[in-house]
């Protein structure tokens, strides 16, 4: 994976000192919170319901054992012994003290990590396929481009105060594991007829209160022109977006209002201009960065055989492991969704254990997924039994990837100052209701996503079943949505009808699942059945 050189290190160190100075000025009263807020947000520091919250960037979801140990150390030393993996492949801490935040950033900088632009009206941490560099179906590792984009978009002067946040994703396979088209700007690496690598470009996606699925705005962009193209997109948006209503300032609104054709036309015009300035990063720089992502030294001739006589182990292998590009290896997913647990939460001790296991079994590499799980990307198949035993010893061996209990949930009203309703207790009740693995496997792939407010951090628009918490006259109320997807057949979930209380929404969800089981055809996933039969039958089943 990428390694900082003197320049990267100097930039991150400078950022720490800058924030130390800004924090000192805030505490001394030289700034009020209104002035300080944009500065702390650009360093990932929110003021949440109970304390400050710090969101640490995990660029494109790739990190290593040393970094994980540092994250554990921070959880133990500066927080309350745990962290929370987010839907943008980041980790956040819930109990941070402002006066200690600069020290935490300094600790992160010692392991080549930062919290730069993880919040605020800025270009956020770039996300990517969590299996990048390991997936059997990728045409190339997308992370060198993601890292290059990280560098070109950090501290971009012209875009110091964008209209809103701006989220980028990069993938390199047909199967979309990164919810590409729910991003403001997204790149899928493709090969053209001449065999050259380039980007298929999407723009204008996003969730929030006005969800839009991104449009394809270009079939093929030469990779070395990405800086010009990105500047063009950002400039068109920065100049033309509304500035009078924060809810209408995301780029998706501009794309929608101008129409995809006119937006693309303006982008192409600005793109031509930027190309003429000669500011693009050269191929040599991509090559330099790509060299850090050469595959680890995979062993040849490994056995593919596994003793699956233990049904619990067999279930874990069946559900949690995925085909690897190297023979004899597997991608191992670590579920952060134990039944009754908090989706995405992990204790400092578990973090340390995962770091150890990454070193022992996965060349030290770890990935964070947008579904709030972890991945050890390069595990020898012959090591899977030992890995499973070790995971089991620390409560991380649940087998439920993409099943009904593998729920994405935002922190909700238990932690978040924007939330209208709690998300986590709903996720817990659903998981408890469907805890039986045999039943879960019978139901099959079913992605449930829960948000505690319309900002949609829990991706409810993209849930096969989505749940949206709202405030109904001071009490929590939950709307049920069906038919969303974040994969390559992206779709937006639709509201079924009137909302429910907490127990009511769990019951309604179960009725929807039962209806699916009653009407599905062989081989159909929940989403397939929904797409075939439509909303009406589900509605009747839900509102009996």
């Amino acid at each position, binding site marked *: 994976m990428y390694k900082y050189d003197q320049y990267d290190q100097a930039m991150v160190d400078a950022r720490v000192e800058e924030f130390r100075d800004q924090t000192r000025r805030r505490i001394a009263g030289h700034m*009020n919170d209104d002035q300080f807020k944009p500065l702390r947000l650009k360093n990932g520091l929110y003021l949440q319901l109970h304390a400050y919250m710090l969101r640490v960037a995990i660029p494109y979801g790739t990190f290593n054992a040393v970094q994980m140990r540092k994250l554990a150390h921070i959880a133990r030393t500066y927080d309350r012994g745990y962290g929370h993996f987010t839907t943008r492949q980041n980790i956040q801490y819930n109990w941070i003290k402002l006066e200690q935040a600069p020290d935490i950033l300094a600790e992160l900088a010692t392991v080549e990590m930062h919290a730069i632009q993880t919040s605020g009206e800025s270009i956020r941490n770039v996300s990517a396929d969590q299996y990048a560099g390991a997936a059997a179906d990728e045409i190339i590792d997308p992370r060198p481009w993601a890292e290059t984009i990280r560098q070109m978009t950090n501290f971009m002067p012209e875009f110091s105060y964008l209209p809103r946040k701006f989220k980028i994703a990069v993938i390199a396979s047909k199967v979309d594991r990164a919810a590409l088209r729910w991003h403001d700007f997204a790149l899928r690496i493709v090969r053209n007829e001449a065999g050259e690598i380039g980007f298929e470009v999407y723009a204008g996606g996003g969730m929030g209160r006005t969800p839009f699925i991104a449009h394809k705005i270009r079939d093929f962009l030469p990779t070395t022109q990405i800086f010009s193209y990105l500047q063009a997109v950002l400039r068109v948006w920065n100049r033309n977006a509304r500035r009078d209503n924060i809810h209408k300032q995301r780029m998706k609104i501009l794309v929608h209002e101008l129409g995809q054709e006119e937006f693309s036309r303006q982008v192409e015009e600005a793109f031509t201009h930027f190309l003429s300035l000669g500011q693009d990063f050269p191929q040599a720089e991509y090559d330099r960065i790509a060299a850090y992502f050469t595959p680890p030294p995979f062993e040849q001739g490994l056995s593919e055989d596994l003793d699956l006589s233990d049904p619990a182990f067999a279930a874990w292998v069946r559900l949690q492991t995925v085909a690897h590009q190297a023979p004899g290896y597997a991608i191992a997913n670590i579920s952060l969704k134990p039944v009754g647990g908090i989706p995405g939460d992990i204790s400092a001790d578990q973090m340390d254990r995962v770091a150890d296991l990454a070193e022992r079994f996965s060349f030290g590499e770890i990935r964070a997924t947008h579904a709030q799980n972890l991945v050890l990307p390069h595990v020898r198949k012959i090591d899977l039994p030992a890995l499973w035993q070790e995971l089991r010893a620390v409560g991380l061996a649940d087998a439920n990837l993409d099943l009904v209990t593998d729920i994405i949930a935002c922190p909700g009203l238990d932690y978040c100052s924007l939330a209208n309703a709690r998300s986590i207790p709903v996720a817990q009740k659903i998981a408890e209701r469907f805890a039986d693995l045999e039943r879960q496997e019978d139901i099959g792939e079913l992605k449930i996503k829960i948000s505690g407010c319309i900002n949609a951090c829990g991706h409810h628009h993209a849930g096969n079943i989505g749940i949206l918490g709202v405030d109904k006259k001071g009490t929590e109320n939950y709307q049920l949505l069906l038919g969303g997807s974040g994969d390559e057949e992206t779709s937006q979930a639709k509201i079924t009808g009137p909302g429910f209380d907490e127990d009511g929404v769990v019951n309604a969800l179960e009725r929807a699942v039962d209806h699916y089981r009653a009407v599905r055809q062989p081989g159909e996933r929940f989403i397939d059945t929904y797409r075939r039969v439509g909303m009406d039958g589900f509605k009747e089943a839900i509102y009996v």
Partner: protein
Amino acid sequence: MKVLTGNDLKTGAVTWWDGVQWSLHVEDAVDVGDHADAIMAREQAAQRVNGPYAIDAEKTADGVRPAHIKDRIRALGPTVRPDLTLKPADPEIGNWVI
């Protein structure tokens, strides 16, 4: 009653105006009547509180109970981590929120 809440500037901890200073405990909160704006302006200027706001609450047998669930969760802590609330010894404390 009207009570004032905010966060401590340096630690971010949820605080309640007890008539003299900012307390971590909602049961210390006092009715500020018509003085909310004046107290908030003074305390904010002195960097003793961050983002203060006034809320409705009622005095019950158990103490001060904020009218809105959000402020009850602020007063207590996350309902899904009773061990991290201000009343970790009381397993039923989550019910106070609802």
